[in-house]
């Protein structure tokens, strides 16, 4: 068991472990009071999928409304609530917790050869805080909803008569969940690595989770404070952002983006980690430029903190700060570019398998390059004057948030589905759905770039008629996207119930998480792991290995 690479289990028949973490304990209590990181991960998975469904329904409603320039299916106030809740649910309840909460929790301790995370009780507390925050956010919806946009900009958010406060409280509590998860993961990675697992032998997913956790710990307190201040101002009239009381509304934006810019890396870094891991398994090859990918994750985590002002180029921020934040944003872009080069480089001279994951990886690479570079484009100060708050920005961040984060999430689901549940999904349907998703995605969001170019502002309920053609195209594309998700839901549920038994390592991956049974035992590994190899190493020991330097 000590050598990750020496036990290809391809020939042995697939066995479903009789006792595993899923059936070791029974009863509702054994789930809700569990301290097992894997069960917590499964509960996170169920929760974030529900939230994704909710956010997705809002998204479809928005797209339908925008089918015509006039009111289509709902009133203006309903529409404003829809896009607000779409943003709040997708960002705070889906994207931020999705990959760290589910796959970080499930796989990261396994990848370290650990028995659990450092603070299992804290881990469970994070989940409960997540649920509390989710319930509060949903209750805001039930109490009439809020119409501020997910950015909660003051003074609108502090003066609107809608129910903002429960949502702010929800975000505050979700922040704590996020902080505690990040703290837990940092300590786990520092203390619970198996013997021999040096920093430079950690899998890239672990590196990504580590970088993400740093951002979570450093940035999230600030959003906690920000929403707290907005809530106090709304309820108590403290006037911190109220111009008539001498307050400065732009200060709110500084507060907000100090968290929310790093937060986009909280969302996207784990996804990049998933791709780094999965691409090695798909191409059966060592990751090209391992160190560059690892360090660029840390680089993004660090430099990402200095770029928040590029969300505020036309907000009344000074030209000096605009320039400073713009130039720093250019450097953040370089870190992502490094990763892209290395991912493509990993495919070079690999043995690429044709499967669902690969389709998503292709989509991911295109989206991350186009979405990333349009990000640099909007960070170019003068261009942002035209593009700011138009659909160009909407399209850009959906390329990154949907194109990169959701592709990463889907890759992770498909890659680790056998690990989590010990079952195989249908590869053919997987590829069909993946094609729908990738194409539907392009059809949904490419038109929005043109809308932005033409000057359609975001958060528009009604729009001048000249924008209609592209809006129709976008709505049509979104239905393809939704159809793809329906297919995925069907074949994954089928796989869960009556799927073929996957065996311990169906992808013949060399990741440490595959060294135990699938699904794993309650205590993860039957015997302690000792790591002696480099990560993502697909060469058989003793075999003549060709070294190529390009």
């Amino acid at each position: 068991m000590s050598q990750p690479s020496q036990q290809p289990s391809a020939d042995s028949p697939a066995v479903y472990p009789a006792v595993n973490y899923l059936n070791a304990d029974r009863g509702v209590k054994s789930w809700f009071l569990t301290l097992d990181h894997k069960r917590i991960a499964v509960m996170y998975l169920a929760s974030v999928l529900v939230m994704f469904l909710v956010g997705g329904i809002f998204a479809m409603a928005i797209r339908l409304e925008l089918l015509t320039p006039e009111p289509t299916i709902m009133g203006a106030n309903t529409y404003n609530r829809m896009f607000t809740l779409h943003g709040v649910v997708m960002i705070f309840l889906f994207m931020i917790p999705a990959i760290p909460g589910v796959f970080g929790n499930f796989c990261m301790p396994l990848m370290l050869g650990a028995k659990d995370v450092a603070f299992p009780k804290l881990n469970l507390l994070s989940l409960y805080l997540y649920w509390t925050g989710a319930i509060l956010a949903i209750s805001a919806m039930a109490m009439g909803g809020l119409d501020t946009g997910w950015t909660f900009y003051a003074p609108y958010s502090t003066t609107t008569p809608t129910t903002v406060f429960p949502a702010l409280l929800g975000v505050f509590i979700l922040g704590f969940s996020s902080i505690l998860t990040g703290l837990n993961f940092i300590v786990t990675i520092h203390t619970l690595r198996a013997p021999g697992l040096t920093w430079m032998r950690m899998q890239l997913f672990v590196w990504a989770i580590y970088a993400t956790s740093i951002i979570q710990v450093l940035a999230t307190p600030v959003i906690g404070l920000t929403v707290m201040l907005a809530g106090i101002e709304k309820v108590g009239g403290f006037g911190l952002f109220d111009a008539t009381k001498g307050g400065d509304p732009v200060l709110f934006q500084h507060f907000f983006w100090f968290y929310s810019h790093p937060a986009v890396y909280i969302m996207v870094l784990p996804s990049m980690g998933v791709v780094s891991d999965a691409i090695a398994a798909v191409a059966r090859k060592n990751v090209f430029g391992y160190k560059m990918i690892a360090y660029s994750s840390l680089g993004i985590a660090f430099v990402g903190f200095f770029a928040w002002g590029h969300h505020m180029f036309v907000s009344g921020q000074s030209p000096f700060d605009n320039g400073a934040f713009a130039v720093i944003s250019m450097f953040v872009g370089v870190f992502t570019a490094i990763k892209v080069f290395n991912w493509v480089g990993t495919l070079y001279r690999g043995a690429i398998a044709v499967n669902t994951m690969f389709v998503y990886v292709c989509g991911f690479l295109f989206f991350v390059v186009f979405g990333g570079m349009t990000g640099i484009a909007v960070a170019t100060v003068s261009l942002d004057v035209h593009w700011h708050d138009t659909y160009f920005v909407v399209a850009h961040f959906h390329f990154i948030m949907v194109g990169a984060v959701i592709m990463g999430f889907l890759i992770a689901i498909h890659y680790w589905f056998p690990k989590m549940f010990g079952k195989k999904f249908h590869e053919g349907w997987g590829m069909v759905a993946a094609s729908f998703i990738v194409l539907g995605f392009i059809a949904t969001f490419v038109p929005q770039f043109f809308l932005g170019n033409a000057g359609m502002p975001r958060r528009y309920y009604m729009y001048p008629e000249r924008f209609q053609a592209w809006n129709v195209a976008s709505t049509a594309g979104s239905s393809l996207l939704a159809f793809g998700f329906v297919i995925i839901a069907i074949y994954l549920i089928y796989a869960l119930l009556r799927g073929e038994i996957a065996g311990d390592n169906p992808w013949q991956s060399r990741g440490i998480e595959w060294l135990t049974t699938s699904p794993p035992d309650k205590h993860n590994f039957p015997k302690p792991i000792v790591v002696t190899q480099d990560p993502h190493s697909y060469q058989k020991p003793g075999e003549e290995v060709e070294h190529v330097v390009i």
Partner: protein
Amino acid sequence: MNELMHKLLFLPPQASTLAPKIDNLHYFVITVTMAASVLTGLLTFFFFFKYRARREGQSTPIVLPSVKFEIAVIGVPLFFFLLWFVQGFQDYIWYTTPPKNTMDVYVMGKKWMWKFAYAGGGPNAIGTLHVPADRPVRLLMTSRDVLHSFYVPDFRIKQDVLPGRYTETWFEATKPGRYQILCAEYCGTWHSQMWGEVVVMPGAEFDAWMVEQKAGLAERVDTGGDDGGNMRGTIVEYGKKIAMTEGCLRCHSLDGQPHIGPTWLDLYQRRETLESGESVIADEAYLTDSMIDPRAKVVKGFKPVMPTYKGRLAAPEAAALVEFIKSLRSTSLENLPSKEATYEPAKPTTQRR
């Protein structure tokens, strides 16, 4: 080239001196972005065909990046990004530094309309801003309530409008025509209808227009009644002043919110249902009648509490009030056909109460 890219990218007309600057950089940036993503995609496909898995458990070489490769990987993107930044920041500085000889216009954004006032005197306006072509115009902007953003796509200018302080932006329009103003910062229910219009006139025509407007003001001052001596502004402005001094605004709001009485926003030509059940269009006659005999035709849902203004309002004053009410449109007042097909003229918005 310019024409082609302009069409390909679905950009709006270039109607200011800033627009070509923004667009040229836009073309460059988008071309590089497209090239990079297409190259990445093609390379991925190429590798996929060339390096497909051929057999089970196939082993692969260890490929490592050389230092040269690493430098290239960091250097090439950084070069492009910084190039964009340098060009973009130059343009931006140009855009944030208005020339000395600008014509200044005060802009106020409020839910959900734009108001304009000329610094050198002249007519105040709601929704429509008249400016001369080929002369720099500086806008000094503030908001009465929440954040708004003054956006004219055809000029490529955008600037947030903040309560409690001024922000500025400027432009020099190059082609006479009518250009749409949009609000780009979310500001509530009718954010998407907070439109206005910039009317760009040839310089000489604008000067003549301005002289005429000012003369019109003076004329009205002469005929405006006893306190006309210190009255300035258009008849609309005069009407507004009366509305304030006579206390109309204590019961009638200007922002679309029903108060003790119906809101005046978009009241003109609105179809109102009366207490009696019949419906009436709020035209000049109805508005004037309602001042003189307010309890005759009370709009459904409101109490008959308004006092009569018979004898309190002189005829010109009542007329001014009507003109003022007519001016309260949440979108542009002007229903003239636009010559440049830049956007469709605003329709009377009937979906709103």
